[in-house]
């Protein structure tokens, strides 16, 4: 496997409220191949989100290194798209302007071109008719679609998703999963996604890492040998159910 993204021996500590140091990640390593969809599951507080922020270059590890195409990553880069737990939209910008934000910041092309491209993405994530709405007028699922479009509009080579659908109701979440797969099937960016949901992880990913808490580390790894394109009906197949059971066993064992 050629490593597109590498994490080598990452250590990260935090000061907790009682002023003692908390070991969030203890020597965590992982490899992600180009075009791979990797999901990371684990209980709350196992350091999944911390790991993702390190991979994004938003935070620096105490020791260890993140490498992107073999080059050390020390600061955020535009070729990495990040989707936060909350939609994290600017309430004063319309849907269209929120989606266009990365293009405006990177000054790639004219404002008009940026707008045209943003319009394409509005359609792609199924928000026709809402281009000029403000985030507060949208439902949670719609907001998260805007966030997804914003993360993808400048065609990142790596997409990092931090529990992007965690705040959504179960039905909306399933639809968003299918839509994410549709988009991903069309443009195979490398994805690392953190999630609470075992079935979400298995439905979407090529490979699933199970993390254990205190200190955060990789506990188990599962390949997901399920054919693509995947359909919602898959989750009731015995093969899928068996994988869910295996992953769950690793998590509840902690």
């Amino acid at each position, binding site marked *: 496997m050629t490593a597109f993204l590498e994490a080598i021996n990452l250590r990260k500590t935090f000061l907790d409220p009682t002023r003692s140091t908390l070991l969030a990640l203890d020597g965590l390593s992982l490899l992600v191949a180009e075009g791979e969809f990797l999901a990371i599951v684990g209980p709350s507080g196992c350091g999944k989100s911390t790991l993702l*922020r390190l991979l*994004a*270059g*938003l935070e620096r590890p105490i020791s260890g290194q993140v490498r992107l195409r073999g080059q050390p990553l020390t*600061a*955020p*880069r*535009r070729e*990495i798209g*990040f989707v*936060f737990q*909350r939609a*994290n939209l*600017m*309430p*004063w*910008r319309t849907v269209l302007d929120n989606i266009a*934000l*990365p293009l*405006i*910041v*990177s000054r790639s092309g004219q404002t008009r071109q940026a707008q045209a491209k943003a319009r394409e993405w509005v359609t792609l994530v199924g928000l*026709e*008719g*809402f*281009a*000029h*709405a*403000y985030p*507060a*007028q949208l439902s949670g699922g719609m907001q998260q679609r805007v966030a997804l479009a914003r993360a993808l509009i400048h065609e990142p080579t790596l997409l990092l998703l931090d529990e992007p659908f965690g705040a959504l109701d179960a039905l909306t979440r399933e639809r968003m999963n299918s839509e994410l797969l549709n988009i991903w099937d069309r443009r195979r960016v490398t994805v690392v996604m953190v999630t609470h949901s075992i079935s979400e992880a298995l439905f979407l990913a090529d490979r699933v890492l199970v993390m254990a808490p205190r200190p955060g580390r990789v506990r188990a790894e599962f390949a997901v040998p399920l054919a693509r394109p995947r359909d919602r009906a898959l989750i009731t197949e015995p093969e899928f159910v068996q994988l869910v059971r295996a992953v769950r066993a690793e998590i509840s064992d902690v």
Partner: protein
Amino acid sequence: MNVQVQKLWRSPTHAMSRRLIRIEIALIPLALVVFLSAWELLVRWQGYPAFILPSPALVWQRFLALLADGRLLMHTTATVTEVLGGLALGLTVALVAGYGLAKSPLLERILSPYIVASQAVPIVALAPLLVIWFGFGSLSKILVCALTVFFPALVTTMVGIRSVDPDLRALMRSLQATRWQTFALLEAPSALPVMFGGLKVAVTLAVIGAVVGEFVGADRGLGFLINLARGILDTPMLFVALFTLVAIALALYTAVVLLEYVLLKWQRQR
């Protein structure tokens, strides 16, 4: 294309609140009529002499006379100039300082005792000093005005910049936004709603600041006119000056509200 969006916010409650606003707007002049009638009746029943409480009609006559001889305009212009100059100076310094203090906790720790101490000195006590230093002209009043405006504008700027969502900051960092882009695209629009609160306080305080400056020592301005009227017991003129000050404060406040209405369009779309 916007049909769906409009459906979302044109709810019955929205139409109702619009009707209520229309009724409220109609009530404002009505309240004024009630107030003036009560005033007129009070003067007639009690038969107060004009130097204690002149009737509204008498004040109106004095207003027309002062308008005709150009004095009212001259004094009003003087005060408005001081207020606008004070606002411009005070707000500019407060915005720059507020941004700096919001960005640097160290700077805040060092400077905040001095800033708070400066607020503990009553502006009325400071004004004579400023008049001695900067003369009887408009500069000393502009400075008094700027000092009154400074603190509320500074505090709201700091609160506004500090309250920027950390996740949105992380987003801007992940997009490799420059310092200027972070300011223009994130910090400024995010702080604006809070800062408008401070601005509303500041514009009304600015009028008070100018009058305080004029009371201490001036040869023109509405504060000077009030002092003059008091000296010669020309109470109708005093009322004219008083109402003109109210009108200036109202005009400034309305201007801020209108600006807020235009700039914070997104806040109404809920």
